[in-house]
């Protein structure tokens, strides 16, 4: 069964890298991409063009996004009774303690820094996949469905 993953990332370069890395790790991932916070929320709420969007199995979220940044998106997800059960993984270049703390306070499931080197980057993506796809148990049913 394919896994639905929402990647909220504005850097196209990083999007492609992530895609390649996920593809190498697990061919059964459907990677959905939102390049800004607004689009991300629309997708999650199945608004407008996203009315038929699937519910992601987990979210990979960058913090520095245009229009609505990742911190806000995280907050919204956390506020949403339905959305907050979706595991959200922060993947960002920010090393700021404040960001780390805030993210966990907003119930991010984990906080990761984007490694500088390619191989390290690929390792992290593979680790995410390995942990969240094959090890961690995810809720099978959404509450509202």
């Amino acid at each position, binding site marked *: 069964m394919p896994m639905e993953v929402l990647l909220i990332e504005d*850097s196209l*370069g*990083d999007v492609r*890298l992530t895609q*390649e890395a996920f593809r190498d790790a697990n061919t059964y991932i459907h990677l959905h991409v939102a390049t800004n916070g607004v689009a991300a929320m629309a997708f999650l709420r199945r608004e407008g063009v996203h009315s038929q969007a699937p519910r992601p199995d987990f979210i990979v979220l960058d913090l520095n996004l245009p229009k609505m940044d990742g911190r806000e998106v995280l907050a919204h997800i956390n506020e949403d009774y339905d959305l907050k059960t979706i595991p959200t993984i922060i993947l960002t*270049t920010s090393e700021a303690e404040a960001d780390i703390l805030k993210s966990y306070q907003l119930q991010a499931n984990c906080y990761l820094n*984007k490694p*500088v*080197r*390619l*191989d390290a*980057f690929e390792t992290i993506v593979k680790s995410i996949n390995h942990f969240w796809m094959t090890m961690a148990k995810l809720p099978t049913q959404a509450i509202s469905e």
Partner: protein
Amino acid sequence: MRSNRIKMKARRSPPAAAIRDLSMPDATEKHLAQMESKYHGLLEAAPDAMVVVNQGGDIVLLNLQAEKQFGYRRDELLGQKVTNIIPEGFAERLIADDLRSAEDALAQQIGSGIELIGRRKDGGEFPIELMLSPLESAEGILVTAAIRDISARKTDEKHLAQMESKYRGLLEAAPDAMVVVNQSGDIVLLNLQAEKQFGYRRDELLGQKVTNIIPVGFAERLIADDLRSAEDASAQQIETGIELIGRRKDGDEFPIEIMLSPLESAEGTLVTAAIRNISVRKAAEMHLAQMQGKYRGLLEAAPDAMVVVSQGGDIVLLNLQAEKQFGYRRDELLGQKVTNIIPVGFAERLIADDLRSTEDALAQQIGTGIELTGLRKDGGEFPIEIMLSPLESAEGTLVTAAIRNISVRKAAEMHLAQMEGRYRGLLEAAPDAMVVVNQSGEIVLLNVQAEKQFGYRRDELLGQQVTNIIPVGFAERLIADDLRSAEDASAQQIGAGIELIACRKDGSEFPIELMLSPLRNSEGILVTAAIRDISVRKKAAVVLLQKVEELNRSNEELGQFAYLASHDLQEPLRMVASYTQLLSRRYKGKLDADADEFIAFAVDGASRMQRLIHDLLAYSRVGTKGKDLIETSSEDALQQALVNLRGAIEESGALVTHDPLPAVLADEMQLIQLFQNLIGNAIKYQSPGVPRVHISAARASGKKWNFSVKDNGLGIDPQYFERIFGMFQRLHKRDEFAGTGIGLAICKKIVERHGGRIWVESQPGEGSTFRFALAGR
């Protein structure tokens, strides 16, 4: 006698013829004749003139003494009227005495007889005392008269009466109480003073026992004085009299001095007592004795030598201190001239001081005394200060001299004068402005530098308040400094002085540094102030501070910049590096050989750039992300570093050892990084064989620790010792050893941030020892 009788008979026919009365028997006549002859004998032998007178007043018998007394021959008086020799009074007596009985008459003695006047043949009269006694005879009653010439006695009596009246006058006028006492101890006479002294009226004392007023001692004196002759007694004066106690009428007792002298009188020897109330004198004596006692005590106890000198210049009294000071025994000085110990100046002073009143003399204190020279027994001289005061005594005005040995003081004064001279010299020569201030805050001394600094002439500042040139802060310092001991004060140096603001004559202000030290002299405690104009220093300090601030700011900016730059550069670099690697991965061998090569260079370049950026970031983080230095276990930091280097250690088989390491003030993360870099280097730049690294620490001066990281690696040529700590400095080619060359620069930055320094000791081929110093607790 028979012949006389017959003779008598021949002249007259007196009734005395009864003697020849023949009617009498013979025996009686014989007895009578015997009586007559005995009687005649007595008559002749009597010492007094005896005259027998008949009732008719004729002298019928007289004796030799009568002849002599009156200057007649017997036959010239016999048969004459007695009135020839006693003109008046006799006849009357006769009658008077006739009325007395014979016994009464016989009982009457001489001295209680009748005083009359006798007349001599030559007409001269003289006082007589008569004693009559009847005599029965045949011729009737005859009267025997014993007649005593009392001229002498009368003269005496008259003299005595004169004396008595004169005496009475003296008595009354006497200032002392005078009391005349008879031998029975009765008061027979007293004067007005006696009445007053004893509080009695005259009549209350007359006839009373003298013991009423002088209970004890008088009677004894009477006896004692009686044994002395009149001359001795009269030679005795008051004040060498006898001291007794007198008692007043009201019972009060008071001390008296009596002087006795005998007084002959008709009533016998009387004693005149002059009685002087000596209560006042006694009180004065007691007081004087007390004073003398107290004075003597004071004299002995006095710390100074005390010498009492008479007006003749003789030493009459001295104390122990005087003995010591002058080296004499007391007896060697008593009675000697004071010039023996104070050769010059004392006598003059005596005169000078005598001219001053007692108050003036008493007002003079030591310290304003007269300076003279004292002479010891051994001939040695020494400077003295004397203070004189007069002393009244029984012996006249004496002078008490307090003598203080001022050798020490004089030496000190001389020394002080020398010091002052020297000090003045130093003062003038001093490079700083020097100002000496007294306790009232007045400037008493200043040097030429002070004149220049403040723009005043010397005379414009002397006597002025120091607040004129240093408005605020000086006075407070004075007080503060007074509380510190002289040693503390003198230990303070310039540079540790007080900063204040000084004011020039033109009103301009300038910053100064003050250094104070106390100065003792005869005027009390003065404060010497060394005043240094620190305007230049202050400006320099301000400039320095500014520059430091600028530098800090600049550094911070730079650090920020470096960080931001590195950080922001990382992103695009990540893209380049990642995609060139992807390219390389996916298309290696799928394009042509050139493409492979190009891609390889691109990948390589990007990688290097990433490492450089990474290291730069690490370097800049030492400053920007550095944490406060706190007590840190350097051993724990080392352990963590070894954990981080686990891979490299295992791979190289390196042996890492260490000694116990101390706690230091450090940023733990950075300390770990420091160890990690140094040990990493030690392993990386290894020589063949097992790399060995040893870490130790040794105490250094202050609270510092010198750490050592010693390896047995390649070693470093001394010419590069400085360079290796520079940024991106490498001593090897890129392909020889990995690394950007930032490791040691980071170490240096970390160590310097911790306030220490880092250096290396090494020789090529002999390993290296990197040392760095950190502050411990």
